[in-house]
C-alpha cells in the first residue's frame, strides 16, 4: 500500500501553494505558527510580533516587523502599509525567504535573487520613493549600532556618511562638489551587492517533518 497520504486538500492551501511555492506541509506548519503568534485570531498585529523574546534582541526588529506590514512585499504592486495582516500576506512575505530549489534555471535564480534584494531594498527605503537616501540609510545604520561607549552618535553618523560617499563614487564616478547625490536606486543596489551569495544567505530551510501517523 505504501505510506502515501493524500491531504483532502484544503482549497485555500492549493491556491497559496501555487502562489508562494511552499508545499502543503510547509503551509500547514506555517499556519500553526501563525495561529500561535496571533493567539488563534484571524489577523496578526504588530503587537503580536513584539511578544517574541528572541526578536526583541534583534537591533533591526522594527524594520523586520514593518516589512511584514509593507504592501510592497505582498507581490501585488501595492504601496503603503497596513495595520494587520492575514495568513495569506504572512505566507507571501515568508516566501521571500524560501531557498531556491535545486532544479532551477539561471533565469529563475536571477529572479529569486532580485526578489530577495527587493525585499531588503524595501526595508531600507521607508518612504518608497525608489531610492535609499542618506537619511534613510543613516537611520538603518543607527539602529544597528548602539549609543554606547564603543561608538558615539557622531561616529555612527560618519560611518553612514562614509559608506554613502563610497557608494556614490562607485556608481556615479567623480562628482562635482555641488552635485547632489539623491540616493541609491534599486539598480545601484543590485550592482553593489553583486558579489554576495544572497540566495544562500537569506533563506530559511524547513526540516523534513511528518507529525501525523497513519492509522489504517
Amino acid at each position, binding site marked *: 500500500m505504501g505510506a502515501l497520504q493524500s491531504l*483532502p486538500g484544503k482549497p485555500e492551501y492549493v491556491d497559496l501553494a501555487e502562489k508562494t511555492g511552499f508545499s502543503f506541509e510547509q503551509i*500547514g506548519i*506555517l499556519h*500553526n*505558527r501563525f495561529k*500561535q*503568534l496571533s493567539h488563534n485570531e484571524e489577523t496578526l498585529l504588530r503587537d503580536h510580533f*513584539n*511578544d*517574541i*523574546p*528572541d*526578536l*526583541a*534582541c*534583534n*537591533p*533591526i*526588529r522594527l524594520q*523586520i516587523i514593518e516589512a511584514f506590514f509593507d504592501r510592497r512585499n505582498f507581490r501585488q504592486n501595492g504601496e503603503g502599509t497596513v495595520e494587520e495582516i492575514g495568513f495569506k500576506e504572512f505566507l507571501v512575505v*515568508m516566501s521571500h*525567504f524560501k531557498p531556491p530549489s535545486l532544479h532551477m534555471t539561471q533565469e529563475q535564480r536571477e529572479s529569486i535573487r532580485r526578489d530577495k534584494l527587493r525585499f*531588503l531594498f524595501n*526595508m*531600507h527605503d521607508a518612504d518608497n520613493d525608489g531610492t535609499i537616501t542618506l537619511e534613510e*540609510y543613516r537611520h*538603518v*545604520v543607527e539602529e*544597528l*549600532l*548602539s549609543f*554606547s561607549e*564603543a561608538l558615539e552618535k557622531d561616529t555612527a553618523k560618519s*560611518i*553612514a556618511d*562614509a*559608506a*554613502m560617499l*563610497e*557608494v556614490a563614487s*562607485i556608481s556615479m564616478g567623480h562628482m562635482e562638489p555641488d552635485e547632489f547625490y539623491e540616493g541609491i536606486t534599486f539598480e545601484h*543596489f543590485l550592482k*553593489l551587492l553583486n*558579489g*554576495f*551569495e*544572497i540566495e544562500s*544567505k*537569506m533563506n*530559511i*530551510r*524547513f*526540516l523534513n*517533518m*511528518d*507529525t*501525523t*501517523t*497513519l*492509522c489504517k
Partner: protein
Amino acid sequence: MEMGAKEKNQQLHKPYSNGIIAKESPSSLQQELQELRGSASCPRSEPEFEMADIFYFCRRGVESILDDEVTKRFSAQELESWNLLTRSNYNFRHISLRLTVLWGLGVLIRYGILLPLRVTLAITGISLLVVLTTLVGFLPNREFYLSEKVHLMCFRICVRALTAIITYHNRENKPKNGGICVSNHTTPIDVIILANDGCYSMVGQVHGGLMGMMQRAMVKSSPHIWFERSEVKDRHLVAKRLSDHVADKTKQPILIFPEGTCINNTSVMMFKKGSFEIACTVYPVAIKYDPRFGDAFWNSSKFGLVNYLLRMMSSWAIVCSVWYLPPMNREEGEDAMQFANRVKAAIAAQGGLVDLIWDGGLKRAKVKDAFKEEQQKLYSKVLVGEQDEGEQNS
C-alpha cells in the same frame, strides 16, 4: 517508566519535536559577518559591510518569527501520535472509520464512566480533607502523627480522583524536615502529586472560595505558609517567614516552585532566586508527565481552573515520573543566582527537559530593552574593530 524517560531523552535530540526550521548553530556575530564579507568577489573596504551585514540580522529576525524557544513553551506540547483525545488532535482530518469508532468508544468511556467516578472521588477527598484537618486542629499540641496521616490519606484520594499513576524514583532522597523542596511547575496538580508521597508545607497566596476554605482548614493541623496578597510584594517579609519556618527543625519541608508560572513540561525556565537565598538544604525534584495519556499543562490564559480540572478528569490518566534528586547546598562563593541555575540544570538533566535561561514571566510580560542593546553593543564592537584596522591601512 524508566524506558519512557529514556525515550523522551532521546526524543529531545530529534529535530522535529524541537523546532520546525533548521537553525544554524549559533555562530557568533563576528563569524557570520566575516563570512558575509569574505563572500564578496573582491575585498572591498567599507561600504559593503553595512549592506551585507543586514542579511544576518534579517535572517535571524525571520527565524525567530518562525520558531523561537520561548513562545512554544506556553502552549501544550505537540504529540507525535494521536492519543484519541480530540484536544490533542492538531491536524484534524478524517483518517478512517475504524479510528472514528474507536474515538467514539473512548469518549463514551471517558465521559460516561471515568468522569463521574472521578468527580465523586474528588468531592469525597476534598470534603474529608476539610473536615478531618479541622478536627485534628482541635486536638492539643497539634498531633503531628495524626495530621500527617490525615493529609496523606486525603491527598491519596485526590490522586485516585485524577487517576494519576505516579512512579517515584530515588525515594531515599526524599526531602527532610528543615529544608526546601524545589520542583519544576507544570500544573497545580504538581502539589497533589508530591503531597501524595510526603508531607510538605505549602506556600501560597490566600484565596477566596473553595480554595480559601481548604487553606484555612489545612493550616489548622499543620504549619502551611499562606500570604495575604499585600504581603507577597514584600520580599523581606516573605524571606523572613520562610527562614523562620526552615529554622525550626521539627517542621516539614517547604514546597516551592521557583519558576513562578506553569510551563508546558518540555523545558525548565529561569528560577527566581528568592527561595535560594535562604540558608538551608535544597532538595530538587523533577516531575515529568507522559503526554500520551493526558496533557497536564495548565494554560491559564486559555482555561480557567474548573475547566482545566474537568479536562484532567476526562483524560485517560495522568501518568508521571517523579525523581527525587540528592540534596544540594549553596557552595562557598556561589551567589543565589548561580545556585539556582545549578539546581535548575540538575532538574532539567534528570527530567529530560530543555534548560532555558528565559524567564517564565515572559508569558505575560515583554522582554526588556537591555537585550536589544546587548546585540547592538556586540555589533558596534565589531565595527569599531574594523574601523581601527581600516585606519591603520589607509
